[in-house]
């Protein structure tokens, strides 16, 4: 690696990284609470402490870990556990498709790293700023790396705190609800137009109706239905307003 201190693009990358860290900062209490309660759940669910730490560090997917936990404890076959992880993580396939155009020009290694460290929080935070144009357009990858590194550190510190202090963390306070509230704060400002509103309503209704499905498939079905509804509304609006560009 070069020194890079005189290189203006290196300075731009560093600045974008710091802006990204700042952009995710207010949401981190939510990530912390949810990470800590997940850590507690791993240990109370029956995992030994060092293995729970290893799982948190490597798997880094709270909902998949919690879905796999009862299967692990029951001694289910490996392929069943991994399949459960894959299906629970299906929404990330949509996320990676949405991120693709922003990072298409970067090296494969960079794209894989940015993808691996993406979560619900960091993805939604990125998309909002990308659409509002409130991040340095030349250094979106550095901005996202800033967001993801802060989120990763927060999650790991909180999860390991929960794993080690499982018997001391008060689970009856409902701290994990802070995570849900952080998601509300992330999504709220995007509900400002009819397609997004309709998509959110349809996604919620379908997710509620399909709630009994295993592997969080209800979530995935709801998200897909909402996206279809929002897109159709968007296109109908565009047709009614012929001033819009594009053929």
């Amino acid at each position: 690696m070069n020194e890079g201190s005189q290189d203006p693009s290196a300075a731009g990358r560093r600045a974008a990284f710091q802006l990204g860290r700042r952009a995710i900062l207010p949401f981190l209490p939510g990530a912390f609470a949810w990470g800590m309660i997940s850590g507690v759940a791993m240990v109370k669910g029956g995992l030994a402490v060092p293995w729970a730490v290893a799982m948190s560090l490597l798997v880094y997917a709270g909902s998949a870990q919690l879905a796999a936990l009862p299967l692990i404890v029951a001694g289910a076959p490996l392929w069943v556990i991994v399949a459960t992880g894959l299906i629970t993580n299906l929404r990330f396939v949509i996320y990676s498709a949405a991120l693709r155009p922003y990072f298409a020009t970067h090296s494969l290694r960079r794209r894989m790293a940015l993808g691996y460290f993406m979560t619900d929080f960091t993805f939604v935070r990125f998309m909002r700023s990308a659409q509002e144009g409130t991040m340095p357009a030349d250094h979106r990858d550095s901005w996202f790396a800033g967001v993801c590194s802060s989120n990763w550190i927060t999650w790991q510190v909180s999860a390991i705190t929960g794993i080690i202090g499982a018997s001391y963390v008060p689970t009856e306070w409902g701290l994990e609800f802070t995570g849900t509230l952080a998601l509300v704060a992330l999504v709220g400002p995007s509900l400002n137009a009819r397609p997004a509103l309709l998509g959110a309503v349809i996604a919620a209704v379908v997710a509620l109706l399909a709630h009994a499905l295993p592997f969080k498939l209800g979530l995935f079905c709801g998200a897909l239905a909402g996206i279809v509804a929002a897109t159709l509304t968007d296109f109908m609006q565009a047709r009614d307003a012929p001033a819009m560009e594009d053929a």
Partner: protein
Amino acid sequence: MSDPVAGLGLAFVIVGLALSTLLTRTSFLVVGSRLRLSHRAEVALRYAPVCTLSAIIVPDVLFHGGAALDLSLFNPRLIGVIGAALWLCASRNIVGCLASGMAAYSLARLYL
């Protein structure tokens, strides 16, 4: 309570689950610039965040811990979300939104 689960078998489980994280999160990113998406698909993906989060949040709030849908105003999570949303409408301060949501939620759990 039985002994905690540990052992070499768990190492394979962790690697397998880590791969499930990596594969799903990098799936389309690996394809990179070789893929051309239609305009319609690009519009659709713009709505991925709001729709996915709605599908995560709403069941989490309305099925709070139980199997039954709770649409009543005695649902503390619903009160919490309303508190957070009101704060968010009045100010863009995120930490205040989390704090007011947790306060409303905790008060509802204590007194309802």
